């Protein structure tokens, strides 16, 4: 689903992503960890097609970028620090907007289903401005899942989700393997994400310093392994 070779993205002189290779197969879930400033979020934004790499090649779902960017975007579900929803629209209006942008066929039924799953069906007609941070992030989870993306890109998702949202996210991630979806989860909570990820990739100073499977490992063992390489 992701084939990246030698990806570089720099902010001025500083290379935030410095020659990263990354492969992700259908059904795989990768925890992407590293200290602050390691380049995790920048790498995720490059993969999400929000930043163009200055060098290197990137293919998503078999589509070489930038040529296949639009097709790749159709398959991406992106969950960021911010919910990426309009505060002055209602929860339903936000999902209607994204449903139309992604061309979701069963938009209204899908919206009702997702709002119910994230526990916001009763607040569907309320503006997001009246929501708590956790509720807004649950709506963001519904937004991300709305178009049934095949590649989930999550930037520290557990940091802002409340317990209900986090449980739903974990459920979605665990279901990903069976239906061929893949996920990249940027995280500081390595031991938490180790429960749902089957690979750990660690970045330091924009470079991959660890890429190994974690399936079957105790979450604390994954944490210790991370600390060994992350410094």
């Amino acid at each position, binding site marked *: 689903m992701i084939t990246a070779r030698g990806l570089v993205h720099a902010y001025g002189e500083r290379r935030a992503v410095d020659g990263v290779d990354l492969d992700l197969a259908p059904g795989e879930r990768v925890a992407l960890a590293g200290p602050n400033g390691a380049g995790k979020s920048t790498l995720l934004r490059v993969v999400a*097609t929000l930043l163009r790499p200055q060098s290197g090649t990137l293919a998503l779902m078999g589509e070489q970028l930038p040529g296949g960017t*639009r097709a790749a*975007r159709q398959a991406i579900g992106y969950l*960021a620090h911010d919910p*990426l*929803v*309009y505060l*002055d*629209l209602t929860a339903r209006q936000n999902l209607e*907007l994204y449903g139309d942008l992604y061309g979701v066929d069963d938009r209204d039924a899908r919206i009702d289903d997702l709002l119910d799953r994230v526990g916001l069906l009763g607040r569907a007609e309320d503006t997001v401005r009246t929501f708590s941070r956790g509720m807004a992030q649950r709506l963001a989870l519904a937004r991300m899942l709305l178009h049934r993306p095949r590649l989930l890109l999550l930037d520290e998702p557990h940091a802002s989700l409340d317990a209900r949202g986090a449980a739903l996210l974990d459920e979605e991630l665990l279901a990903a393997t069976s239906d061929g979806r893949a996920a990249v989860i940027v995280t500081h909570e390595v031991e938490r994400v180790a429960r749902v990820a089957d690979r750990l990739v660690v970045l330091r100073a924009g470079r991959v310093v660890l890429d190994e499977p974690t399936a079957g490992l105790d979450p604390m063992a994954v944490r210790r392994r991370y600390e060994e390489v992350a410094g």
Partner: protein
Amino acid sequence: MALVRKDLRLELRTRETIVAMVLFAIVMLAILQFGFGTRDDDLTRFVGGLMWVTLAFTAVLGVGRSYVAEREQRVLDGLLVAPVPRTVMLTAKAIAIFLYMTVVEIVVIPLVGIFFVKGPYWDAIGWIAIAAVLANICIALSGTLFSGLALFTRARDLILPVLFLPALVPVVIAGAGATHAVAGGPHDMSEWRGYCLFLLAYAILFALVSVATYDAVFDD
């Protein structure tokens, strides 16, 4: 249409942009009225300039607010990661700006007649409206492009007028010329037609420039 509907829903809920634009235009007309003379003075020969200077500055105000919701509510990434061609985003934003300007002109064009014109004016309203529609297309396309460019700069509130106002100069010249040709005296339709053709050509030029550059504005 989803993006246009979104902009209109936001505007209907907050009423921030259109109300501010209309009030700004009315205040500016009042300032010009006092600045140029008294109600007894016949300012008919200045009517084109007075109208289009007012509309140009009002456009700067409106265009400056065109990406405020995306910027302040941090939604832009959500739109950019969606599989929507950038030209569709450009068109949607341009349609919203066009509609806002149309509302402003529905107020401003009659008010200009009341404030400044002594002679016949009302029978020229239709011809002025046609020129205004063409000018709005120019304003909407150039405004969307420049507000997109300014969006990614730090001093965006300063950069936008610096970029946008020079692009509006031809629109003001042609809009004022077309208005002057039909307002306050015998209609000079050939002059009016010439200015309208100029506005049409300018709109086509900006449409081409926008389509050619808008991907780069958002992706680079």
